[in-house]
């Protein structure tokens, strides 16, 4: 099985870089987009195995992106994990209804992020690279 390709959609360059470093260390191949329209174009071009999607985006927010992905036959099968600073209480249900596989609230714990990615990609028994996390308080 080849390296899995993940498309990261986030308008914050710091967040893109952080996810880049963290996920590369876990042997994923990464593609990036910083707005809604580009994310659809990049998804079409690269056909990633997974999309990590922020909700607050320029040029079509995350919900619009989910809508467009679902409306496109070839893209509708790509699993999406929403990672957003928005309130879980108000945005999670909406994101899941729009077709996201999971909703994670920023700041996302590294262990949680990696485990959800592996679960959504259907990977098992893979040990993540060393992980430090935020305390549970």
């Amino acid at each position, binding site marked *: 099985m080849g390296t899995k390709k993940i498309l990261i959609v986030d308008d914050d360059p710091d*967040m893109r870089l*952080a996810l880049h470093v963290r996920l590369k260390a876990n042997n994923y191949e990464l593609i990036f987009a910083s707005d809604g329209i580009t994310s659809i174009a990049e998804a079409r071009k690269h056909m990633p195995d997974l999309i990590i999607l922020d909700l607050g985006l320029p040029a079509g927010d995350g919900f619009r992106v989910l809508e467009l992905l679902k409306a496109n036959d070839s893209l509708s099968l790509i699993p999406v994990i929403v990672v957003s600073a928005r*309130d879980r209480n108000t945005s999670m249900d909406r994101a899941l209804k729009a077709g996201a596989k999971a*909703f994670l609230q920023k*700041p996302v714990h590294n262990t949680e992020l990696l485990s959800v990615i592996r*679960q959504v990609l259907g990977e098992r028994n893979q040990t993540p690279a060393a992980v430090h996390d935020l305390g*549970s308080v």
Partner: protein
Amino acid sequence: MKERGLQVLLVEDNAGDARLLREMFDKEIPGSFELTHLLRMSEAVTHLAKGGVDIVLLDMGLPDEHGLDTVRRAHTAAPSVPLIVLTGLDDEALAAEAMKEGAQDYLIKGQIESRALPRALRHAIERHRMQTETDLIRTQQMQFKDEFLSHVSHELRSPLTAIYQFVTILQDRLAGELNPQQQEYLEIVRRNVNQLQSMIDDLLEVTRVQAGKLTIALECTSLSDAITYTVNTLQGAATAKGITLSSDIERRLPSVYADPTRIRQILIILVDNAIKFTAANGAVKVQAHLSEQDPNFLVLEVSDSGCGISPQMTERIFERLFRVSDSPLAGRQGLGLGLYISKELVMRQGGQIWVKSVPGQGTVFSVTLPIFSLSNLIAPALQKETRTETPISLVVTKVGSRTGQLSDAVRAEHSHGVRDLLQRCLHSDLDVLLPKMGFTGAAELFFIVAIADGIGGEALTKRIREQLGSDEHVLQAGLTVSTSYRLLDAVKRNGCESMEDFVTKVTTTIQDLMNEEISSRTVSDGY
């Protein structure tokens, strides 16, 4: 431009009283007051609905309404119009009550001085205007503050996320090796990020409380698990301060009917505070036992040997933004939101919270939480079914993951949806979907007690299989679902001495069956 006279509505059925007042108004400058006189409450309400009235003079004994109800009706009909009640000499107490109902003032009939009347009216109007304005400003300020807090806490999350991400990247050596000093300093950064994170969470929580959006998901859950979790989580912080943190939990403590996440949240706040206000060599202890006052509740206690709280402060300690002013022990104090949040959370789960303290000796925070009672949940349905040979069954739905382990994140996200679907499958008020029973691991279990007449567990099981088997969300999420039922054929109503006896037997049998399901799952799944 000619100023419009004050529109006065007089509601008075006594012709003599009305005439006296009218004569007083006639002495005023022409045009400064325009009097409308009505005899009945119903007429007054219709007139007020048209608008344009500046002030109402209201007699409290009308043919179609009497006493405080006159004030209530007038106030409801036109809440924004000031009101003065007219009352007899012996009714002053009633008039005072009327002011609580929204009247601005009262005038005692027979004692109204003609020169004082216009002044009383103008003052009432002015007072009412100022009060309305103050209320409006207060509401706007509260709303603005809540929106501001919510916005700020969201905006703070993004930079905090970036700090957290890069600190952990450095700590995990993803950007090269670190020397011990660098490691130590990064650990300090991470600890502070933690602190900031919990402050932001508190701010958001408070805005949720204010907006009435606090979510609480009650289930059957273990208080001792929550205590163990909290003690483990905060043991490091206690040890670092030279404080002994321990727990003492009564054996065989029953489960509580509460939200496990919220209980942990409350415990963390209380224990964290206790550690904060206790000096080195002190002790913090978490205890749980059955309530002596009410056997339906458990009592949770967090006690410390800290600096204590003065009696004046124990009254105010649960207020929002309250902070102890000058404790040398507290260090960084935080926002003063923790106890306020705790109180809201405890009350929303049907419990109570209070504090007892002796300055210089220590403090005890006590929380009560309702005990989970299976019989309370199923008794109403059992009582509704009147036939003696009612077939009762326990329907069990297991939700697992095709990939093996059902992660907490996926579980949390889908169990709500599955629960909704199951609820829709229920046939009548004779089927009871039990709340989440608090299991973790490879599968989530849902239990339904079916007391359905003639339909029973078999039909319900079939319906659930059809519904869940074709649900798009369930399929897409890669969940596996299996549903089966067990008949409680040994328990029959006519074999029981009383309804109470019947409920007890059903409850015990169901509890046993559920325990069997849970333990068989644990063994077979190997988790």
